[in-house]
């Protein structure tokens, strides 16, 4: 399968999932939506395996890396600032929704920083930057 054919298949799958999910919402049938999504994922995996053209190369990976890096640093800083504002403006009444939201945001920031630190440690070990 060529990359062009795969892109068409991908659009068709997205349309199929969209239609089935909207039908399942109107009929209040969760299982229909779930099965459509699972079938869509399976077809996508099978279609991906049949593609002979190069789909992801080093430039795509570089772009993905840079985009992920910016997305991570931006979202962490924004969430950290938001959590600070939400927590410190509601210190008097800690039962408010905003205060709790601030706490949740701060935990999300901590979690993402922990994942980043773990990944950083893993790759530092992998590429041996600790060794002399």
């Amino acid at each position, binding site marked *: 399968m060529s990359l062009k054919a795969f892109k068409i298949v991908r659009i068709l799958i997205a349309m199929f999932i969209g239609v089935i999910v909207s039908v399942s919402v109107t009929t209040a049938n969760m299982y229909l939506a779930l099965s459509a999504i699972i079938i869509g994922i399976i077809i996508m995996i099978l279609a991906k395996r049949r593609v002979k*053209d*190069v*789909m992801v*190369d*080093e*430039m*795509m990976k*570089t772009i993905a890396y840079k985009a992920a890096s910016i997305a991570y640093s931006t979202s962490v800083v924004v969430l950290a600032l938001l959590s600070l504002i939400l927590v410190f403006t509601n210190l008097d009444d800690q039962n408010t929704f905003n205060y709790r939201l601030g706490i949740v945001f701060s935990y999300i920031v901590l979690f993402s920083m922990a994942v980043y630190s773990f990944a950083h440690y893993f790759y530092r070990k992998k590429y041996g930057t600790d060794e002399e």
Partner: protein
Amino acid sequence: MAQMKNKIKVLRAEKNMTQEDLAKEVGVTRQTIIAIEKNKYIPSLELAFKLSGFFGKKIEEIFILN
């Protein structure tokens, strides 16, 4: 920052190849070849070696560091 230039476009034209053909030969997408030719993307050492091997030239004959 140092600028890297290359002769990929000229060498490809000499071989009468399309960007698609070259991309297939070295195992990348056409977009990557376009970006390299426009000097917008500096290829990895691996890809540089593949290109030099394909064109039968030394890396320094294809890529020039300004």
